[in-house]
Structures are given as C-alpha cells and as structure tokens.
C-alpha cells in the first residue's frame, strides 16, 4: 500500500533542477508527481516515478544526494469538500501529516494526493477503515 518516493538535495543554483530532470529523462524514467520545498540556500525535490530503484541509482551515480521515503497515495473525490473529508479522518485519528502534494496525472474523476505521514502504518490502517481508497505502487506505475 505504500509507495516509494525519491528525495533529492538541491542547492539553489541555476540549472540544478534541469539537470535532475535531464538525468531522469536519459535513464528512461517517467515522473508521476513532484514537489519542491525550499529555503534561501537549498531545496528538497520529492518525486514519485515509475521506476524508483533505477531513479535512485541514476541520481547517486550522477553525484546527487538522494534517499527514499515511504509515502501514501490517496484517491480524493474531485469536488468541493473532497480533501476535507480525508483530512477529517486523519484529524480524528490524531495523525500528523509531514507534507502533501498532488499528482500531475488523473486516473479518473478522482484526484490523487501524496501524503507523507509521521506514522505511515497507522495512517494506512485508519484510511482503509474509513473506506478511503489507497493507490498501489503498481497502479502508479501503470498510470
């Protein structure tokens, strides 16, 4: 139920993000979702890709500091109040969200969101209990 996310350390320099995407392109890796968090000096690029193992190996070989994290991708109804329904479940269960971001592509009428939880295991159980659909790694790769 969990999905592998790749995180990359990036200095705030011209062209650095381009170099990452170029490297992934060359290695035949498709980006499914991405997000950047930044400060004045550096940023963290977070990626969901179709081939995480290859992406990690390619980035490391390219001299980047990169690591993997387990995240959860959730289907959210694409209508007013859709997101708040999911967040309501998390709030009631006392689950902390470290960060979240959306997918580039849409599988259906539903929106796809990526969540990084403080406690991933507990979050998966709570979401399933509430009948919220969690997307599998295979589904992501076949998007």
């Amino acid at each position, binding site marked *: 139920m969990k999905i592998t996310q790749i995180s990359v350390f990036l200095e705030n320099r011209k062209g650095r993000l381009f170099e990452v995407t170029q490297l992934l392109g060359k290695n035949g890796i498709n980006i499914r979702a991405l997000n950047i968090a930044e*400060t004045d000096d*550096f940023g963290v690029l977070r990626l969901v890709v179709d081939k995480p193992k290859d992406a990690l190996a390619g980035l490391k070989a390219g001299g*980047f*500091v990169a690591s993997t994290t387990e995240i959860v991708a959730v289907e959210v109804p694409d209508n007013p109040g859709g997101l708040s329904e999911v967040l309501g479940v998390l709030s009631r269960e006392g689950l902390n969200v470290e960060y979240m971001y959306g997918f580039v592509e849409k599988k259906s009428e539903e929106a796809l969101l990526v969540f990084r939880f403080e406690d991933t295991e507990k979050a998966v159980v709570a979401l399933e209990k509430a009948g919220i659909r969690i997307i599998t790694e295979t589904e992501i790769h076949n998007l």
Partner: protein
Amino acid sequence: MIFNEKMECMAPSEMKALQSDRLSKQIDYVMANSPVYQKKLAEHGIRPQAIRSIDDIRKLPFTEKEELRDNYPFGLFSTGLKNIREIHVSSGTTGNPTVVGYTQKDLVLWGEVVARAIACAGGEPGDMIQIAYGYGLFTGGLGLHYGALKLGCTILPMSSGQSKRQLKLMNDFKPRIIGCTPSYFLYMLDEARELGLDPQKSSWEIGIFGAEPWSDNMRQEIENAWNIRATDIYGLSEIIGPGVSQECHLKCGMHIFWDVFYPEVLKPNLNEPVKEGEFGELVFTTLTKQGIPLIRYRTRDIVSITYEKCGCGRTLPRMSKVRGRTDDMIIVRGINIFPSQVEHVLLNIEGVLPHYQLIVDRASGGLDDLEIWVEVDEKNFSDEMRKLENLTTKIKKELESVLGILVKIKLVEPKTIARSEGKAKRVIDRRSL
C-alpha cells in the same frame, strides 16, 4: 621497530651534548657559507664562538618565512648550486614561492628521518607502501619515497589523485601501508563504496597521514571506516619536508627527531618559551643541514611539546597536533578563528562529515560575515525540511558557542568543496583587506 635506536632512545644528557656540538658546528657552517646569516648574526652582535651549548640558542636571531621569499630563489642557500642535488618549491599564496635545496648529504638525512618515521608508525622492512602524496615539487611524495627506500620497503609510487586506480592497485597488490593527506583518504572512502569495495577489508593496516591539519575525531572516523591504524606525520619543506616528527603506535604525540631538528615552543612573536605542555609557536633549528640550514625558523604552527619518555621507549620529545597557525588564523570582527575549531565541532555532530569551508566576506555596512559551508551526505539528508533546518540550527548553535561569533551555515551538495588533490582549501577570504 625503532629504526635508529641510538638517536631515538638516547639519554637526555648525552643528547644535549650532541645537540650542543652540532649547533656550534651548524653556526660555524652558516657563518662560513651564508651571506644572509653572516649579516644577520653581525647585526645582532653575535660571534660564533659565543654559541657553545644548545642553551645558547636563545641568543640567536629568528628566521622568518618572508626571508625565504625575499631571498628568492637561492639567496638563503649555504652552498653553491653545483652542490645542490634536488630542489623543491612550495606554492605561495602571495608573491614568490618558497624554494629549498638539498645536497647529497641532505637527501641522505631526509631518507634517514623518514625511514625512522615509517618504522615509528609500525612499518617494517619488506612492507609494501603506497605513496599517494603528490610527487614533484611538493616534498610529500619524494620524501616518503626516500624514507621507504632507506627502510627497505616495496614502493608503489602512485602520487596523488586517480582514486579508482589507487583502490584497484590496493585491492590487487595488497600494500600494508598508505601515505596521503587525511582528507584525500576520507575522499577515497566514498570512491571505494562507489566501486563496491568494502573499506573494512582493505589491505592497508597503517596510514601515514599529514600535510594538513586533522583532528582526533577525524582519526576516529578514518580508523573506524577503514579498519586501519591512522598515524600523524609532520614536516615542512623549509626544515626537510615530511619526517620532522611522527607518531608511534601509541598515538600520544609526534616524536621529533631532535638530534637533527631542534625544537622550541615560544609565545607567538616573542623570544620567550612557554611552559612545558603549553601551546605556542613551534620554532626549529636544523643542526646538520648543508643546502639550506635554518636558524630558529618560526614555523607559525601552534603546538605543545612534552619531554616525557614515551611508552614505546623513545626519549624524543613529542609534539601535539598543530592546533592552528599564527597566520592561517582569520580574524573576523576581532575574534581569532582557526579552521581546526570548526572541524572539531562538525565531527562531534552525528552524521556530519568534516567537509567544510569558511567564507569570510565584508558586508556593505563594513561588518565581516562568516559563512560556513557544510556538505550534505546520505547520513544527514532527509526528505523533511524540518530535519534539515534542525541540523542547520544545531551546527550554527554549536559553532557559535565555540567560536564566539555569529555565523551563517549553508548546506551544500557533496564534493562542492574541492579535496581530491592534495590539501582541502578551508578558508576563502573575500575581503579585500
């Protein structure tokens, strides 16, 4: 083993007599051969006959690094160029480089002291030694080379750089000893892992690391990662190059070969010795050199010395690691800062590698800013900004409490700070002072 038991284990009284005899001969020699020293001693009203005992050394004037540069290229040589067999040049950051020359006898001396150093680190005749100090004008490579020849080692004269090749030959030939700069050795750790080699299983059992400052924490890191005995070697081209002093297996200070290089520890810029064990500027007098003998040469290295006999049996004085330099020290907003202080702090923070650089700049308001770049690696990287910011804050707080000055910390990508060739550049001063 102790390579020269007579000289390395001599009783102090006997040593003093030997040093006294050698000092008076060295003074006679420079007075007969060096116009610079003839003038210098005359200006200080010193007659060579007045220098009879090693204790008379304090009557002699100092020699400063600038004098080597001012007398560029050969003005401080005490013999004609025809008698010089080898010349070494150290890069100067400003103006002329420092030039030194060795006679045949000086080269024999160099081989002798480095042979003592390799044996002191634990090397034996017949061991294979991989020399990854730069060969050429820098004294590191050839100095180790002559010592290894004298001791009777099998030499792999690699020079610096080409890490993949260094690691391949280590893996194939199984040398027991490696000599290189400590920062280069840490750099090779990354390379080894990239090549899929297990650093724990390397053939190197003994490391002879020097040519740049490094801390005991860095030693721990090297010893744990490589499963090696990491020893410190000290030297400077003005005195001979590597082989001035070396740690034994007990790693409790570097044994100074004082039958040939006489050390004093003085209060910076003064002619006043510190108490035994206190830190001060290291000053050397060569006792037997011919090419470029130097009298009371101010090294600008800050060390302490103990004269207690070592557990290894040597009666040589032992010097601490170089704690700082009287001239590498940077002054930011009136505070003296040594790069070694920064290194010490970083090594005490878990997951932080000692790969750093200090950038000093003058802000438009006229105040100096100190920015410290620290490389991020997989051990301290996180996908959560909060954790990276906590790391930055932690480094900042600990550095500020040690340095006593506000600093800005910048996390940078790995290998941003050049360290593959020779010495890592620790300070960039952008102030146009």
